[in-house]
């Protein structure tokens, strides 16, 4: 039965997407929404059934479905094949359930948009691609999903294409991820060449039994890491994600917070056997993750656009996941992926609802005091914010972040014999990040929902929107208790779930780690309250004039750097070479030939003219006709003949 359900899982949103696309303009908005929700809902149901089936089976059991061979020739094979194991179970549950909730929300959110069919077509297509990505048991198949989600992301960011900025943002996102994709493709080529197949099991086995040289492993891991970094908007590819907020909010929630951007995390977790062999790459990953989380948090702290705050926060949270991955805390990364999907989706959806009701006002300093106007939304947002900050015990974010921090503490990297990188430093960064997370998100909470009211809110949040919000609230709060820190009661469902597939990473952690991890977010919350939350806040508005703030607000100026370093030169060079140089060269040859022809003609008449001047004197007396002919031409011709004769004779005789 699993053999049927697994393809059906992907097919159901795909079919919904096709129907929606094909029937564009003919179905009503309501029908389109229903159709899309049905498609995603079906796959949510199927994924629950499949999870139950898989988890009730043996611990190492997987569900393999080989649909058809993609290509089989001597020395290489790839298939369209899917596999459900415990990692993908987590992913499909997250993707389909969060996806379903967001779809339901979007039905209401987008109900009056003329392009609703395009929207839902892309959204369901995205779900299908994402499922392909997470279920693929062949890297090639995975790559299909990988690029598919990128395409859907492009379509959705640029959904409101009337504004050039939106399409520019969409293109930017696609280009940056495409660079990563190119690197990923190189990694795939390398692995395929070395292992002769792209089947994940085969590849990993080949890596494990030393069939692939260590340098090749490192290279491949690096390539794949670049791909993952680009997809997950990590340094140095982080700049596309904030711009991607140009898309409709449900898109931001689904693609740019909950699912697609975590594809990089998933990919690395999936290929963890490969990365374990590549120690330097792991270290690089951890360091980049740490830097990103810090940088993302700092930038989020100075943003004034509500969605951008959330975007930078996403980057920062993804940094946590990469940090965890780099330290080998695979379970922690995936756990955080899951909880992050819940609370970030919640935050985005709530923000979207707020924005809709305040006439598309996104600047937090123009909002304010909204907790009276929309208490439900305020509660939801605060729930999400607490989870993001990791308020201890009651929120899911606390548990996952705690798991990461404890994993990081234990890690250390032996880069060379002398050079080791201890996890403690990274742990410190992570902790600082946690503090900053609490600070920036509660800054947002206090400014938007407390204090003086800025704008007037109208309307009501529709029922269709509140249902997903409340579901996500519950998930954000309780989603974490399935995995407790080691020092807590022995409830380790998540680890137990993943342990058969991923190497266990539990190390002994000192008990005070948890304590510190619990205190720091609270401290952040407190500082935020002191700064922005009190009836007379210390800081109402961040002084934007400070150069450092301005610098930080643009995301560390990376955009500008890239713009000057790559984009402008590229534009200039393409502008410079817009006409084909080779074309000119060859056209020039043609011109030259014509010029030669002309000069041959001229030499024929020109010489004649010169001779004519001399010759004319002698033939003045000739009669009219002869005068006409005897303009020297004939003499010239005759001279040619005689000249040719002499040349010929000379050649023959001298030869």
């Amino acid at each position, binding site marked *: 039965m699993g053999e049927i359900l697994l393809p059906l899982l992907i097919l159901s949103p795909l079919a919904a997407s096709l129907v929606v696309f094909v029937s*564009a303009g003919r179905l009503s908005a309501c029908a389109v929404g229903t159709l899309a929700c049905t498609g995603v809902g079906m796959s949510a149901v199927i994924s629950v059934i499949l999870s139950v089936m898989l988890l009730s089976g043996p611990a190492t059991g997987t569900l393999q479905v080989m649909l058809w061979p993609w290509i089989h020739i001597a020395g290489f094979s790839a298939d369209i094949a899917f596999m459900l194991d415990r990692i993908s179970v987590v992913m499909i549950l997250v993707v389909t359930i969060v996806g379903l909730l967001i779809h339901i929300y979007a039905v209401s959110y987008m109900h009056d948009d003329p392009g609703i069919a395009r929207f839902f077509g892309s959204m369901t297509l995205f779900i299908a691609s994402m499922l392909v990505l997470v279920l693929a048991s062949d890297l090639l198949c995975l790559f299909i999903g990988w690029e598919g989600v990128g*395409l859907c992301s492009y379509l959705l960011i640029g959904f409101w294409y009337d504004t050039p900025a939106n399409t520019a943002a969409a293109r930017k996102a696609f280009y940056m991820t495409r660079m990563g994709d190119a690197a990923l493709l190189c990694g795939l080529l390398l692995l395929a060449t070395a292992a002769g197949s792209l089947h994940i099991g085969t590849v990993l086995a080949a890596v494990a039994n030393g069939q692939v040289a260590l340098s090749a492993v490192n290279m491949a891991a690096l390539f794949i890491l670049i791909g993952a970094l680009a997809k997950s908007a990590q340094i140095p590819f982080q700049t596309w994600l904030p711009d991607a907020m140009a898309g409709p909010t449900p898109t931001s929630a689904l693609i740019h917070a909950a699912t697609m951007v975590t594809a990089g995390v998933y990919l690395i977790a999936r290929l963890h056997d490969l990365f374990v062999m590549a120690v330097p790459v792991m270290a690089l990953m951890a360091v980049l993750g740490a830097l990103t989380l810090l940088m993302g948090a700092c930038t989020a702290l100075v943003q004034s656009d509500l969605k951008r705050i959330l975007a930078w926060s996403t980057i920062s949270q993804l940094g946590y996941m990469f940090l965890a991955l780099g330290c080998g805390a695979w379970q922690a990364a995936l756990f955080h992926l899951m909880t992050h999907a819940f609370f970030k989706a919640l935050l985005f959806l709530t923000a979207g609802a707020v924005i809709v009701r305040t006439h598309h006002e996104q600047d937090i300093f123009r909002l304010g005091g909204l907790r009276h106007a929309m208490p439900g939304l305020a509660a939801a947002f605060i729930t999400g914010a607490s989870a993001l900050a990791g308020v201890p015990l009651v929120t899911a974010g606390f548990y996952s972040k705690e798991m990461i921090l404890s994993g990081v503490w234990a890690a250390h990297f032996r880069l060379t014999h002398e050079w080791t990188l201890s996890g403690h430093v990274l742990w410190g960064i992570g902790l600082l990040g946690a503090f900053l997370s609490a600070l920036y998100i509660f800054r947002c909470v206090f400014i938007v929902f407390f204090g003086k009211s800025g704008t007037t809110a109208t309307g009501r949040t529709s029922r269709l929107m509140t249902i997903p919000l409340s579901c996500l609230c519950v998930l954000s709060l309780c989603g974490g208790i399935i995995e407790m820190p080691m020092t807590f009661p022995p409830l380790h469902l998540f680890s137990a779930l993943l342990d058969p597939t991923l190497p266990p990473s539990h190390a002994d952690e000192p008990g005070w780690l948890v304590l510190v991890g619990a205190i720091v977010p609270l401290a952040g919350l407190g500082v935020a309250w002191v700064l922005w939350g009190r009836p007379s806040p210390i800081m109402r508005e961040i002084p934007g004039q400070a150069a450092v703030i301005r610098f930080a607000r643009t995301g560390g100026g990376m955009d500008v750097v890239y713009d000057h370093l790559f984009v402008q030169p590229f534009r200039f060079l393409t502008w410079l070479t817009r006409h*084909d140089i*080779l074309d000119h060269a060859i056209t020039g040859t043609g011109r030259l030939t014509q010029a030669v022809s002309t000069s041959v003609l001229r030499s024929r008449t020109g010489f004649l003219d010169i001779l004519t001047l001399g010759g004319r004197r002698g033939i003045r007396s000739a009669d009219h006709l002869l005068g006409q002919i005897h303009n020297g031409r004939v003499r010239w011709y005759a001279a040619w003949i005689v000249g040719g004769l002499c040349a010929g004779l000379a050649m023959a005789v001298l030869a």
Partner: protein
Amino acid sequence: MSPLPALVLLPIMGGGLAWLTERIQLHTATTSPPSRNASWWMMLATLIVETLLLAGITFGHPTRTGPWLEHFSMPWIPTMGIAVRLDLDGLSLSLIWLSLILCFLCACLATRQVTVKSGAFYFLFLMTLTGIIGTFVATDLFLFFFFWELMLVPMFVLIAVWGHEDRQRAALKFFMFTQGSGLLMLLSILGLVITHDRETGVLTFDYFALAQTPLSPTLSMLLMLGFFIAFAVKLPVVPVHVWLPDAHTQAPTAASVLLAGILLKTGGYGMIRFNVMLFPDAAIHFAPIAMGLGVVGVLYGAWLSCAQNDIKRLIAYSSISHMGFVVLGIFTGSRLGMQGAIIQMLAHGLSAGALFLIAGAIQDRLHTRDMHRIGGLWAAMPRLSASGLFFAVASLGMPGLGNFTGEFLVLLATWPVSPAIATLTTVGLVLAAIYALRMVNRVFLAAPRVDPLLLKDLPARQTAVFACVMIFLVVLGLYPQPFMIFSGPSPLSVTATTSREDHAP
């Protein structure tokens, strides 16, 4: 009786009939109102009969007994050892299928707009098809060259008479380049034949006999270069590509489709059939240069494509980029690369052909090809725009669609030869994203610039035709295996390819 001669001659005869039909109609038009498109129906009927014939050939061989599906031979000029030799293998067959599919596309989408002398248009169109099919099946080198030249003439006329504003210059350029390089190939053919004559005392133009000619390395390299230059111009490979953007841009839509879809493929076909198979050793020696040219083509074409504002020109340069992959694949020296190149040719034929059709449809409606002036069309023409988006995405190499399959296989074959080249080539993929999406965001998904009421979307029937192409591309992208088996070039020199496969992983 082999159906091959019929396969070759049918289009030209049908074309002649179509022309006659139009002339007769013109004469009778004074008495009765003309049923407008009798000659068009004639052309369609020709294509259908041709397709049936081809289907008969394809499915008449449920089990492939030998490598070659069909054979036909008839003496032509016995004193010179020239004969009408036609052979059909999977490679030819798949390329002929591609040609027919594209011809149907043109017939349905692009030729109805031709109102001036449409009968002559159909005749020339089908005559080009004859030349192309002849090129794909001829195994007598003289005959091959005959068809090779023959297909130029009608194409020249198509461009020069029915093209756009600067058509005549473009047509001249096209003809001069391909003809001039063709002469080099002629010399190579003659050199090969005469060497064969000297060695064996038999004057023949038979492909299979000539393949056995013992050649010195230098001579073999020289002769191969002659062939290579001719094919490189047709394909085109970068330094000699300059005819292509003009010709593609100025040609009428149907001719653009033929040019991009099939005419370029004759270059790739020739490289596989003649360069690599006739001169395997020289091809190996030449491979580094050819692969270098391929990469340069990929990058240069994509780069220039990024800078174009003329939509047809953009597609034309992207064709150059895609054909770079074909060169790369063919000269990797492995069967994998060659298969990749073939898939790439098929997929590019479909996607670029469809893009040209879309560009043509836009030009018919807006009378401009300038992307700045077209503006967003999605609101007014969702069906056309969606199709355009799909094919643009296909041409940027989206996995799951045919182009990616070709590119991936080529890269996979290139990697063991030179990881550096393969890595460099992937940059081309990034550039492909840039030009494809630039086009999408200028033409389809942008603020509308033209009054939407003036524009008529594609009729449903035409959309359905596009949908068929999309399905082809998806199948090619998700399930290329049958095509790989089906379209492999028949091993004339089994030894040559298998021995070189050892180089590959």
